[in-house]
């Protein structure tokens, strides 16, 4: 651009894929307004409401045994469901991306099922399948003394179902794209299957895996519908944070309203922390990220 008359804006106008400025301005404005109204304002309201009666009232929520139990259960459920789905996600992505077998396309569709089925339906199905008066449920209860429905195992199960696709969906397209060339190179150099996975396959997909795990974790902690149906909402036993928020909110006490929003603030805070970690990792390892994304 040696021509001094050609300003940057004019240069942008010359690009064949750039629209006229009113269109651009309208699009940008629309995006900002929608994001603000639908995302930022509600998030702020949560924190404002939580602190409505002062910080002391907000903190008093966490002296309620039910609230503490709910936080504990949510963390426990996430701690079980996320690793399960991580292992399953890697295994499924590996099978689909690296092998050819009949029913492969159908399997991809099946993995998406939890996205398309309402979580409430999923919860109901488990109740009908594993409830104490069904053959499987009765067998588990009588022979092993394990209660699934209206108990913690059911909550974990429902959460695993709902968060099933996140890791696999992140990994499948990437692994399909990468093919098996690097793995062949590794085994031709004498690496065993496990070494190949550990040194070559996993590093190649680690960023997608991380995103998948973060998304999976966020959803695992926030799940409401399936858990609501399967847990029986036993306070202090099977109630997770989202359920406890709902329970508080249904009470007609000013304190309960504050508690609902305090707990909601914690849940929102966990989500924000997750986002912050992801952004920090992206910033910290920007060079590596560029390296893994640049073709061969």
């Amino acid at each position: 651009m040696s021509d001094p008359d050609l300003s940057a804006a004019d240069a942008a106008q010359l690009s064949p894929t750039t629209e006229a400025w009113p269109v651009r301005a309208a699009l940008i404005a629309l995006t900002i307004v929608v994001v603000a109204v639908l995302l930022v304002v509600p998030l702020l309201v949560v924190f404002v409401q939580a602190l409505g009666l002062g910080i002391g009232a907000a903190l008093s929520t966490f002296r309620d045994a039910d609230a503490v139990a709910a936080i504990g259960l949510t963390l426990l459920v996430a701690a079980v469901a996320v690793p399960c789905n991580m292992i399953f996600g890697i295994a499924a992505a590996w099978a689909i991306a690296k092998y050819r077998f009949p029913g492969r396309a159908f399997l991809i569709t099946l993995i998406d099922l939890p996205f398309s089925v309402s979580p409430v339906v999923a919860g109901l199905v488990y109740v009908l399948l594993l409830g104490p008066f069904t053959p499987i449920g009765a067998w588990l209860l009588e022979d092993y003394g394990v209660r699934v429905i209206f108990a913690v195992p059911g909550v974990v199960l429902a959460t695993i179902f709902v968060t099933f696709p996140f890791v696999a969906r992140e990994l499948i397209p990437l692994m399909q794209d990468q093919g098996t060339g690097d793995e062949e190179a590794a085994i031709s150099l004498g690496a065993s299957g496990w070494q190949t996975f550990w040194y070559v396959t996993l590093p190649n997909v680690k960023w997608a895996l991380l995103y998948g795990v973060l998304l999976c974790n966020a959803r695992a902690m926030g799940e409401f519908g399936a858990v609501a149906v399967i847990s029986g909402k036993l306070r202090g036993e099977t109630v997770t944070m989202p359920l406890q928020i709902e329970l508080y909110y249904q009470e007609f006490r000013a304190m309960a309203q504050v508690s609902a929003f305090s707990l909601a603030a914690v849940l929102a805070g966990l989500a924000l922390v997750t986002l912050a970690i992801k952004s920090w990792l992206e910033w910290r390892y920007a060079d590596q990220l560029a390296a893994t994304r640049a073709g061969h």
Partner: protein
Amino acid sequence: MELSIRNVRKEFDRFPALEDVSLDIRSGELIALLGPSGSGKTTLLRLIAGLDFPTSGAILFGDEDASRKSVQERNVGFVFQHYALFRNMTVGENIGFGLKVRPAATRPATADIRRRAMELLDLVQLAGLENRYPNQLSGGQRQRVALARALAIEPRVLLLDEPFGALDAQVRRELRRWLREIHDRTGHTTVFVTHDQEEALELADRVVVMSQGRVEQVGSADEVYDRPNSPFVYSFIGESSGLPVRVENGELWLEDRPIGLKAADAPGGRATLHFRPQDVELLDGCGGCIAGTVSSSRRVAGTRRIELEIGPEHHRVEIEVPIDHAAAQKSRVAFRPTRWAVFPASA
């Protein structure tokens, strides 16, 4: 390490990719597998490596049958077409990978692995780049790293799949000479796949010409160029023209007259005469020759090529003439091939 490929057949979903291929490779030889795409050359290379297994037949490393051995057990160095460098590892780590993954009993110490990687980087003339990542290297440099990585495991055989396929012409010529030097210095039995005949003829001790899953001819550059044994090799390697002729009593006939070439061994009947543009002599009169009308003339480097239309069916052949030859459009030119071959016409 001698390699022996015996009656190997390979099918993919019932579709034969290789049919009854046999080949002996001598220890320390540099062999090119040359053929058009779909000729089975890469399949053969992968079978030797153990990345695929033959449907039938055997592959011998020395006297030992390696057909059913895994790729790890065969200890081959394989250089992939797109290099397949590990992008999350530095150049040094890439080269040392094959040593790092050895079982504890045979694994060298970390310091030794590093030293070996440095030596190999020196060998491939990339000293000082050990801490770069593959995406920070040029195509030619990646190629060299891939070779160093394959050499690090002290392979019994070195296999290269289209080693220069993704590089531009200049780098390609340079690396070709360099690969020959490395081969001569390290003495590995080396097999490489290429579709570039110039590369195969220049680089290899022997060239294996392949077509449609079969070996057409095996020989030195001179043999496959000067004495092609089939119409395919004639047309695939170098330039050539084919002209339908007839064999009668050991003489070649074009249409209704003899062309002055004797083929005592050829069976009678329809056949195709093959010759290269430069292997002809121009004639003045035509007492037993091929004559045609000049349809086009073009300058090719230090010579001139003219295209002739021959006979009522306007068969086109190309011959080389001196630069100053006064071949004008539509003029008649008579010639006779000096070096040629005749193959019975396929039905």
